[in-house]
């Protein structure tokens, strides 16, 4: 069990006055069986005249803000205290043949209809034929779902190179397969597409990765920024979470913020601005470190 303090700052600079900024953010870590959000605060500068919060259909905390004061810099700072615990998965559930882990064939499972939502193409995850060819190699007939999904993750880790700036939000899954580079969001999208191409439910997860590794352990890729990984539905066993960027199942270093079908459902910050200005710059920084008095 580890308690972290997470500070996530997103800053926009504009060439000229912005007369109105409307934004939506997903920044509050979720409360889960293995995670508790102890404290959470978001500061918007200039101060937002409206700040509303609600729970979206996936149970994520989604906030809306509106800054009416003209500004050339907008800064959104979220500070969270979150406790992450180890998570046990039922080995029997993980041993389910992957064919039986497809929500469409499991009407016996009460949550299958909800998992079905994660089996279709979504705004940023299309499912081209190539992705199926890529993914199905790991899904030999009858193979346990846990094993097959994990192997798909290993292959993505091995076949793709992490390279920031090599992609944008408009990069499609097919492009990634040709480029063979990307960032964590891309790898998550790719893996989700692979799962979905086989009728499995693949969920995109947005969160953080501990910046400073425990003593003696290497620093993980995707720290210093928002991180993203993948959930795969396991009938009767909840969701198996896999981090293709770091080639591992998620653990106590991962703090979950929000999940959805893809990035577009749960971007940390998105918005609409009204301005005559033509240019803007964005800068993001994330720090996630064990809280001084709570490490055990």
């Amino acid at each position, binding site marked *: 069990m580890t308690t972290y303090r997470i500070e*996530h700052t*997103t800053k*926009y600079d504009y060439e000229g006055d912005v*007369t*109105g*900024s*409307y*934004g*939506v953010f997903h920044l509050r870590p979720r409360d889960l069986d293995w995670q508790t959000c102890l404290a959470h605060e978001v500061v918007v500068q200039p101060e937002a*005249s*409206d700040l*509303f919060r*609600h*729970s*979206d*259909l996936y149970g994520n905390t989604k906030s*809306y803000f*509106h800054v*009416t004061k003209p500004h050339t810099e*907008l800064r959104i700072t979220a500070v969270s205290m979150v406790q992450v615990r180890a998570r046990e998965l039922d080995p029997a559930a993980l041993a389910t043949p992957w064919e039986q882990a497809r929500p*469409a064939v499991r*009407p016996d499972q*009460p949550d299958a*209809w909800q998992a*079905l*939502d994660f089996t*279709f*193409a979504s705004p940023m995850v299309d499912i081209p034929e190539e992705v199926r060819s890529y993914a199905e190699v790991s899904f030999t007939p009858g193979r346990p779902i846990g094993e097959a999904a994990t192997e798909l993750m290993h292959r993505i880790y091995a076949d793709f190179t992490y390279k*920031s*700036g090599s992609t*944008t*939000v*408009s990069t499609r899954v097919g492009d990634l397969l040709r480029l063979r580079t990307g*960032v*964590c*969001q891309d790898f998550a999208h790719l893996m989700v597409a692979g799962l979905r191409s086989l009728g499995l439910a693949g969920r995109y997860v*947005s969160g953080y990765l501990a910046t400073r590794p425990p003593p003696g352990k290497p620093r993980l890729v995707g720290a*210093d*920024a*928002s991180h993203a990984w993948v959930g795969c539905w396991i009938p009767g066993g909840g969701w198996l979470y896999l981090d293709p960027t770091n080639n591992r199942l998620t653990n106590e270093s991962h703090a979950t913020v929000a999940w959805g079908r893809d*990035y577009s*459902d749960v*971007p*940390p*910050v*998105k*918005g*609409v*601005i*009204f*301005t*005559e200005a033509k240019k*803007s*710059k*964005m800068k*993001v*920084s*994330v720090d996630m470190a064990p809280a001084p008095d709570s490490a055990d």
Partner: protein
Amino acid sequence: MTVLTRYLAAAGQPNMFDPTPVFDEFANPDGTVRHGWAALLEGLDEFADSDLQQAQRKVARLLEDDGVTYTPGPATGSSILDQQTPVDGDRTLAGAVPWKLDPLPLVLDDQQWAGLEVGMVQRSELLNAVVADLYGSQQLLRERRLPAAAILDHGEFLRAAVGLKTVRTPLFMLAADLGRDTEGTWKVMSDRTQAPSGAGFAMQNRRVVSRVMPEVYQDAHLHRLTPFFHAMRMALVDAAPSHVEDPRVVVLSPGTHSETAFDQAFLASLLGFPLLEGSDLTVRDGRVWMRVLGKLEQVDVILRRVDSTWSDPLELRPGSRLGVAGLTEAVRQGTVSVVNSLGSGVLENPALMPFLPDLCQYLLGEPLRVPSVDTWWCGDPASLSHVLTNLDSLVIRPICRTSGRSVRGSALTRAQTDELRAQISAAPHKFVGQEVLRLSSAPTAAGDRLVRSSVVLRGFTVRHGQSYRAMVGGLARVVDETDDQRGALVTAPGTGVAKDVWVVGSEPVSTAPLPSVAPRLESVELVPISSAAYSAAMVPRVLSDLFWFGRYAERAEDLLRLVLATRHVAVETDMDVSSDHSLRVLLQALTHVGASYPGFTDPDVAMMPELRSMLLDRHRRGTAAQALASLANAAQGVRDQLSDDVWMVLADVDRALAALRSSPQDSGSQLADTSERVLSGLLALSGITSENMVRDPGWYLLDSGRGLERALQLVTLLRVTLNRVRAPGVDQLVTEAVLASSESIVTFRRRYGGRSGPQAVLELLVTDSYNPRSVAYQLQRIGTDLNNVPTTQQTSRPLRVLEGLIDGVRSAELRSLVQSTDGQRPELDAFLGGLKEQLHALSDAIRDLYLKQEPGPQPLGRSGAYSGAGR
């Protein structure tokens, strides 16, 4: 034999090739007339072939006069098999086409109508319950009463709209497209729940038909449409958040280029609610406001005609310019009601149809009254195999309309069929197969006879208290029997020919709450308009359209006057276009005034073609046609503010231009005739705006636009004609033409007698503040106009610029200005040039103060990087 009896006789003929003939709306199989049609048959008992043609012409003329159009959308023709590029931010569409209407209505007896009406009301309640569940507790999905795949993978299922607890009645209005099978049973072919269109068209059809066949209309005992619109207005007011006392209702339109722009504008003015676009609204404090003359006024109810996904660039579709950023959140906060609710388009889903009978039993506890056409959802394995086996006899529809239009299996080539099979097999849950209804036929005018055309009926319901109320009537459309695409594209709005729908009783129908005086027939059908709602629509975009309406009307008018004056000189001088002769000077003036360069500044240009182009070429800058097209466009944007007469005038102007266009060999007489007709139309327009429009801020801006344009045109004209000294004979003719085109020649002759000369011209046309054509007069007029706009302050920039202009004109030393050196008048040129510059500054100042619209929305962080991917 009349056209109707002939149709009747033909319908009674047995057809050995067709053992199960289609149901005919008019004729029983034994050749007698169906219930309800008797009045029509009697009323038209002497209706001969030529009357039929005349009726069609009259319908077309009335529709043209009212400017009734439909704008085919990009998807209207493209089926699921066409190469699809997803419809993106750019929704600019092809031009508007005239609305087509058959003079003969579809007549339905009110006894049988009653069953249909109850069925539509029931369907509305059912669909409302379904959509409430899908965005609420989702029990139907959880209990598998509806297949989750058909909902969750539907493009109009909006996840941001799930759990909007403030939505009380998600389905405010329903339109259902119905067809009748060979037995005469009505079946629903598709439901329209996104933002149902057509109610306005239905009313327009009624108005036209009632004018073309007034006697029949009066004797037919037919149910009026008006109560439906009364109910709709009340329902809109009722839809407001519960704490609001005197709610403000607006109609949100995608703009004048949308497919059903006419329908939207007509409906808005029928209801008396302002027609707005997304940029007219803004969200603050979690509420929706409209920008009215520099301040904000809260909006409580939005009748949404923008598709849900496009309604909010923040939460729904990034980049949409048709919506209002933050609208979803305002709904979530419960401060505004959007109807139909966001996401209600998910009901336009044919995959629901097979499940409706069970759902109706489950949700409403009663059997479904009006069936849907037989539908097989391919997400179900048995249905899929049925569809694949019977492709030839089915219509294949995608479950979501944005995926493309339906195709009819029998109309496909072998290769297309294979392609379709592959598409269905790849994602079966996204398709349905539907039976092809053999639609009923109805007599429809085609030239001098009546033919049997297949008919589809769009019925409407609107929320009424705890239930729904149907329009007793509707929008029918007939499609050509021979069109093989029939059935596939049959629900494309605007395709085919529309028909009014008459629901008639055997007794006179009570019209109790209507006014007893009916000066004009169609006014019986008008809903009284609340003037308060009208004057409130003074948003910058509307003011801007009105200002430019004034400017373009004046621009076209001035240009035509100059053309006519020039034509006069051409006749006087036997077309002598040699350089520095009066005709050449005036032709060049025409080019300068319109800024349609090079035009006549090119010495080699031929006169007639260039003049024709000045009148007809709407794609060329500075032409009369362009000014008129821009005028019509500005008018479209404020259709709800203008009287119907405006459209009549514009239609007349179009006809005049068409006459010139169709005589390419014209040597000048048609050109003069057209110019005169267009000019008289514009004069009528000026009369309408000055005599019939309420003096509200919109009118004052329109009038200031007119004054400003007149001053600008005049200054330009004077500058290019009086800048030089020419031979006395030439100057004489040019001066007279300038005065004639400025409507001041009579005054000039009376006041100055034979004495003429530039100074007198300038006196009359520039400094005389009593001459309504002078520059000085326009400046005063603009001042009066602006002072009547409530938000104008004495220190505001337009008034300061105006002050400078008035001073400049007042203190002008005309005597010294007209002095010439070497045949040039440099001082005059500088003076007039200065005026022109200041007038432009005035226009800019007016724009900045009254007409300025917010910049469009842009995404936060445009770099395309993942927010948070960092590094």
